């Protein structure tokens, strides 16, 4: 039951993150949305692991830890790119001005 509830939450988070990633223009907002999206995927994975019974399946847990760290590394690179883009152009959006 718990697993299903969190699985559905993960599904909803994926939708929310995806929306933010597509609609938002500011690069930092997009990075936030990407992290929400990723976190929804991880939560869904956690729900899958929890379905294995009490204690959960450790293999997905290990994969989630790997995924979280990878997402952090990518976010850090993204933030650095935004910072330098903002310094060069005064803007924090990768898209051309007319969208």
């Amino acid at each position, binding site marked *: 039951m*718990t697993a299903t*509830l*969190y*699985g*559905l*939450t993960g*599904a*909803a988070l*994926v*939708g*929310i993150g995806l*929306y933010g990633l*597509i*609609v*938002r*223009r*500011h690069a*930092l*907002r997009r*990075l*936030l*949305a990407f992290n*929400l999206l990723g976190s929804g995927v*991880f*939560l*869904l994975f*956690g*729900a*899958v*692991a*929890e*379905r294995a*019974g*009490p*204690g959960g*399946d*450790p*293999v997905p*847990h*290990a*994969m*989630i*830890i790997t995924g*979280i*760290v*990878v997402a*952090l*590394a990518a976010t850090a*690179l993204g*933030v*650095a*790119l935004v*910072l*330098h883009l*903002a310094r060069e152009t*005064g803007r*924090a*959006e990768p898209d051309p*001005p007319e*969208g």
Partner: protein
Amino acid sequence: MTALWLLDLCLVAVILAVALSAVAARDLFAATVFFVAYGLLIALAWVRLDAVDVALAEAAIGAGLTGVLLLGVTARVHMEARTPGPGRGMRLAIGAGCAAVSVALAAAVLSLPVPAPSLVPAVEAAIPATGLGNPVTAVLLAFRGYDTLLETLVLLLALLGVWSLAPDRLWGGRPGLRHRARPEGTLAWLGRLLPPIGLLVGVYVFWIGSDQPGGAFQAGTILAAVWLLAIMAGLSDAPPVRSLALRLVLVAGPVVFLGIGTAGLFVAGAFLGYPPAAAKTLIVTVEAALTLSIAATLALLVAGAPERAP
């Protein structure tokens, strides 16, 4: 227990509300704070999902690093997007599409088979050969050690990527700005008090990791966070990126992992294999080196590209 259901419903409701606000908030700063809050709530969710190892990692990353990374940068970039986003109609259409993705995923979750297939029996059968008590550590360092090896290289590459943004003339210099704080002030006081405690907690989390939730990633993250605090309090400075000592620390984890993995080719019959008698010692050795490298890499990832001349 129905009370747990109540708690789960509350937690899920707050998580979704915070996630929606992080996307919908007008203000960039508000969105960032919502996201920091979100990381905290997700750590609670991991405890409810019986994934304490993940909860530890999420707590350390969400509270220690993501907050520092994102809140630090909001002050340094323009807050508003200048290009208009998609129009109202378009946004509605995109929203409907994303909602459809969520609904389809929800249907997929509900249609997963019962009983759930899992690798729990396989892990239980194989874990004695590692000498470890924590199955997650066994998966990370033994059964799927190759993933972990690649992951540490992902961190290293990300750091090279961040450094690649430095102007040529500043190459070799120190990352980020030199932080200052009044020596007798509150921040300096915190910066002197917390790092020793953090060091203790980090070593503790690393040490219990072989048998209980914890391990190299969680410990490395905690150590990175307290180092960043010392830097922000002006008590420590990021080393120059040309420093050989720094570079050796950064690659120590991957080098030890690769070395022991290659030795496995000869003593255990396979790359990344461990002879069962020495498995635990070797795994703890790899983890110790990884903790050190992960701590340094994560802290420098947050510190950013070299900004001061060598």
